[in-house]
Structure formats: C-alpha cells, structure tokens
C-alpha cells in the first residue's frame, strides 16, 4: 500500500469519527440552548403578603436579572401585584411611588409610570396594580448580567403598603 492510499484511508476514518460524533454534539447543543432559553432569574413570582413601611425610596428586595449581549439593547421590566394602601379617610389612601434600582444603583422612578394609588370606597380591599418600565442602554445597562430590584415608598415614614401575590419579569426588547 502506498503512503498516499494510507493517508486517504486515515482521512476517511477521521471524517467518519467526526460524523459519528455529530448527532451527539447536536443533542448536547440543543439541550444546552433549551436549558438557557429562559433563565430562571428573569421572572419572579411571590406568593405571600409583605408589608413595606417608610418614605420613598428604599429597596423592596425583589430582583430579576437579564444577560445583555455585546450590543446592549433596551429591556422591559413588568410588575403586577395585588396591593393595599393605608386609608387616610373614607375615600382616600396614601399614594405610593415605585421604581427600580439598576445594578444596585439608586432608586429610579423615572423609567416609566411610578404611581400606585386608587380611589375606592371600600378601603379594606386589595387592588391590582400593573406597571411597565423601559430601561435604556444609557440608563446604566452593561454587557453581561444586569439586575433590577424593586424599590419605592410612601409620602412619609409611617406610610404603609401591603403587597399581595406579585410577579416581576424582565426581558430584552427586540
């Protein structure tokens, strides 16, 4: 057998080994991408009541995070919650302000709507609040992991809000 023929056989064997390994590689790649399709950090579901007392603004301890690629895009953070505010009189409750801390920074209440307040005649009732915020690249987003923490507070130190079941979610705008 000449050297050329030997080389050809060797090349074919190598190619065959690679081809045999391909399905396994594809399977691993598919499983990996499926596992990372929705990071568990991107959504938070709280199923207990929490009471927050104090003037705006302080951290409420609920966080979500998202991974930004090299080209940073805007992100959308949504917060939906049952809530109960402190009654002032028969018709009024103390308003609350909500916002987000971006990567541990100060509480930003200028990322979208920030008011949690509702007039209702029956002050001893939970209401539903729904807010959406848009965080732009210039707001302090970085390549890699970005964390968003719920924050807020009332008009004075004694202001109180009871948050019921709530969800916080973040996604990259496309």
């Amino acid at each position: 057998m000449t050297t050329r023929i030997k080389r050809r056989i060797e090349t074919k064997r190598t190619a065959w080994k690679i081809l045999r390994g391909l399905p396994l590689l594809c399977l691993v790649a598919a499983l990996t991408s499926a596992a990372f399709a929705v990071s568990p950090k991107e959504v938070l579901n709280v199923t207990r009541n929490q009471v927050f007392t104090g003037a705006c603004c302080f951290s409420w301890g609920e966080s979500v995070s998202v991974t930004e690629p090299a080209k940073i895009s805007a992100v959308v953070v949504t917060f939906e919650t049952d809530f109960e505010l402190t009654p002032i009189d028969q018709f009024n409750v103390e308003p609350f302000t909500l916002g987000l801390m971006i990567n541990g920074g100060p509480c930003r209440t200028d990322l979208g709507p920030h008011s949690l307040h509702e007039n209702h005649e029956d002050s001893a009732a939970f209401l539903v609040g729904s807010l959406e915020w848009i965080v732009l690249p210039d707001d302090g987003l970085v390549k890699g992991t970005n964390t968003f923490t719920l924050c807020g507070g009332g008009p004075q130190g004694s202001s109180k809000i009871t948050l019921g079941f709530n969800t916080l979610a973040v996604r990259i705008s496309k």
Partner: protein
Amino acid sequence: MKILATLGKQKVAYIATILFVLGMLVLGMAASAYAVGPQPVFRRTDSQVFTGKCCNSWGETVSIFQKGKPTPVVVSWSTDFRLDPFISIVTGLMVNDEPCQFYGGGSFVQDVYTPGNEPWDSRTLQFVVPASEMNGGTNTFTLCGGGLGKDTDAISIGFNVLEVRISK
C-alpha cells in the same frame, strides 16, 4: 512643507487620495450608525394634558420591522394618569397613520369623587394588532384617544412607556 516637498507631487496626491477615501468611509459609517431605524420602545418623563372628544393622535409612536408577511404584534402602554371626576376616556392606536382603532381594553374612568386634587394612578394596557392591519416591512403605531362626553373632557398623562413586540 519641507516634508511635502521631499515626497514629490505624485506621492502627495496619492496620500491625499487615501486620506480622502478614509474620510469618506468614516463619514459613511457614522451616518449609518445614526440612521433612524424602527423604534420598538418609547419612554416619556413629563406630563401632558389631552383635551377633546375621541379621537386624536397623542403623538407617541413606536415602530417595528417585520420581514415578509407580518405576524400580529402586541403594543403595551403603561402610564401614570389623572382624571377629573365622572369623565370617561378611551384610547387606541393609529396603525401607519390610519384612523384611530381599538385593539383591546383602553377605557379610563374616574367614577369616585374626591374633594381637592385628583390623585395620580397608573395603568397598563395591551393592544393586539392583527396581521391584516399591517404591511410587510416597518409598521408604526401611534397612541390616540379622547373623551366620550364633552369637548372639554381631559386626561393628564404622566410618565409613560410604549412598547411594541412581535407576538410569538
């Protein structure tokens, strides 16, 4: 100048040509970087008052690009708002500057009388625009609305965000 003289006319012309081409390349890249493409998100951080019967454009627009046949999109609007007592306002979208249409719940009602200043409240609305209302390529969505009663009906809109995304 001495350096230019030692280089000779041909070389100077050659260098000038290269510098010109490089300059044009840089300008071209800068222009493309600043070209305005679809804007799927919009954020406004001041307050506005919209007065009048439905429906008028409220001037807030988002846009999205879809290759080929369009699929339905979801437009979310989350806002702080304030209404006088006993006023009803409806909101919708103008798709590609067509008349205002309603693509989901968009009503604002203040049915409780509060003495003094009305408080700010917040609300998030979602409009679903069907594929049949859109063209292939870039589609724009402009917020619109107005009162259901008198010409003096007004709504104050505070900090708000508008977002469009393709439904999947």
